[in-house]
Structure formats: C-alpha cells, structure tokens
C-alpha cells in the first residue's frame, strides 16, 4: 500500500498502445494499491492532442482509484505544442524531473492522510 508506479514512455505512442496503457495502469493501481503514479515523458519529443487527452484521462482514472498522478520531464517543445493546441492538462500535476515528482507525490500522500 502506498507504492508508486513508474511509467516511462519512450516511443511515440500509437493510439492502441495508449489505450492499452490506460487499461494496464488501471489494473496495476487497483492490484498494488498504489497511491502514486509517475509518468516520465522526458523521451517524448512530439505530442499530439491524443497524447494530451491520454495523460489527462490516466490522471482522472488514477484519481478515482485514489492515486495521484504526476507527469515529469516534459520537454520544452512538447509544452509549447500542448499550449498551442490549447491543452492545459487540467488536473494533471507536473514536475521538472523524477526527484521533484517524488516530492510532489510524497506531499500528496501526506495531505490525503494515508497511513504508511
């Protein structure tokens, strides 16, 4: 209980892969009782609105399962593209790197009052 799941996205994702990822992640969160999900996108150089929506839905799914999601390592080009696309990723926490991301997750866990 209280574990953190780390997802590293390394290749530009196809739609099916993204959907499979969502399924997989939901299962894992439920099974391990994880309280935090960290998605590392530092290797992602191109994004489209699909990836943006996918990040938002993963975050939503995780929240319902009572886990916090933080996206780390967003590259400048990706941030600019998301802004130009008008996607502000509401409800998705972000951090500059894994270290800071763990900080965010730790604080979120404390605030939610989870034991352990």
């Amino acid at each position, binding site marked *: 209980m209280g574990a953190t799941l780390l997802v590293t996205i390394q290749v530009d994702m196809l739609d099916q892969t993204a959907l499979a990822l969502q399924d997989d992640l939901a299962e894992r969160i439920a099974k391990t009782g994880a309280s935090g999900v960290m998605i590392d996108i530092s290797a992602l150089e191109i994004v489209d609105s699909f990836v943006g929506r996918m990040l938002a839905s993963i975050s939503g799914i995780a929240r319902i399962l009572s886990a916090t999601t933080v996206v780390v390592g*967003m590259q400048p080009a990706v941030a*600019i593209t998301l802004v130009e696309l008008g996607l*502000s990723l509401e409800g998705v926490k*972000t951090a500059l790197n894994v270290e800071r991301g763990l900080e965010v997750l730790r604080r979120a866990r404390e605030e939610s009052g989870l034991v352990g």
Partner: protein
Amino acid sequence: MNNLTTYILDALQAPHSAVLIQDWIAEARTSNPDLAKSATADATEVVAAFGASLQAGADAGSFRDPRWLPLQQVLSALSRSRAAQGQTAGDTSVFVLALKKPLLDGLQTWAAGGDSAQLMAAFWGLTKLVDSMAQFTATTFQHAREEIINRQQEELLELSTPVVKLWDGVLAVPMIGTLDSNRTQIVMETLLQKIVETGSELAIIDITGVPTVDTLVAQHLLKTVTAIRLMGADCIISGIRPQIAQTIVHLGIDLQGITTKASLADALSLALQRTGWRVTRQA
C-alpha cells in the same frame, strides 16, 4: 550598335580614359559637392571593368547579357560600400549617371559629320546602357541595405530576450520593448530550455520595459506561463506599472491565478520564500 561599341571602347581606353574619368568626377561633383574621396578610385575601377566587358564581347544593347558580369560585380561592390558608408541610393545612382555627360560629349565629337540618324541611335543606345548601369547599382544598394536591416533586426531580437539566473532555481527574463508573437515564441523557447537545463522551478518575467499591455500581449504572456506550468515550474510576473494594472482591469483580462508583483525586488523576495530561503541582515 557596332559603331557604338567601337566608340565606347575607344573612349574607355588610355589615353582617353584618364580624361574621361576626370570629366566624370567633375560632372558628379556638380550634383554632389561632397563627393567621396574614393570616387576617383571607384571611377577608375568602373571604367576598367566597363572596357573589359566590352572587349569580351558584351552586348552594348542589353545589360542583361551575362558577359557584363565583370562590370556588374564592380558596380555591386561600389553599391555595397556606399551603403555601408550610409550614403543614399540617390547619391550612388547619380554618381553612375554622371558618366553619361562625358561619354555623350565625346560621342558628338567622334561622330561629327556623320549620319544624324546613326548619331541618334548611338546616343539612345549609350543613354540606355548607362541608365541600366545606374539602375543595377540602385537595386543592389537596396538589397545591401535590406540585408543590413535584417541582420540588425535579428541581433536586436537576440539581445533583447536574455534569460538570467537570479538565484538557485530562480530564473528571470527582463523584457524590453513590445511583445509580439515573434518575440513571445523566442522568449518561450529560450526560457523553457533554460528551465530544463538548470532545473529551475521559478521563472520571473519582468515587464517593466514593456510599454503597453493589451489583450494580445496578455494572451502571449498567458501562453508562456501555461507552458511553464505544464512543465512543472511556476512563473511570477513583475514590473507591472500602475497604468498597466488599470488597463488589465479595464479590459477584463483574466490572469488565471498568476502571481503578479509591482517590482522585481518583490518578485525575488517571494521567489526566495517559495524556494525555502530566508534572508537575514547581519546586525
């Protein structure tokens, strides 16, 4: 045209060329008393290239003939150096046009007693040729100035958006001048890149040097801040002048929860606080 070519070749060669150049400079001086000291050297070069091109068989009836290249190159160089010296396009083309008078005077003497129709044809041909040369010079001048302006614009753009490190984890961008989409793009890219490189969590955008903020400028600022937040850092906008604060309220611009401070000092103080620093004065 053969006659014309023959005449010009004759006029351009020594010993006639020395007199030609003198007369040219004299004529140029009547329209421009402050003629550059380098003018005589320039004129000599032009005369040499003119003769060389004709010798190589350049068509005196068309300046577009590729064999005029040597002369065109000399005229281009003349144009560029005059542009760099800050002279006007008018001065430079007037200089080239001044070559007409001595050449036409010589033509009259040379063709004396000949057919008047032929004289007219030669006269017209010479006029057209020198006009083309002046036109070419003016066009090159234009291009040279535009190049200088473009290069200066680029340098200005680069110089005016520096990203500086204010403290560990705190970056600052002092913006000077109007904020348009071009500059916003550059600021965004530079700032975001620096954030990743330095791992800074806070960026302070200081707009003391931005004269006006309208809805468009505000949009650009908001875009930049959104991008910064997406990456996991945050942003403070400082240097908000009272008039700008009023404009923002009157226009109903929603700053979407961005912290704003009147001065860079206040912003720095807040930034230090947020990153866990406390500043104490030594008694």
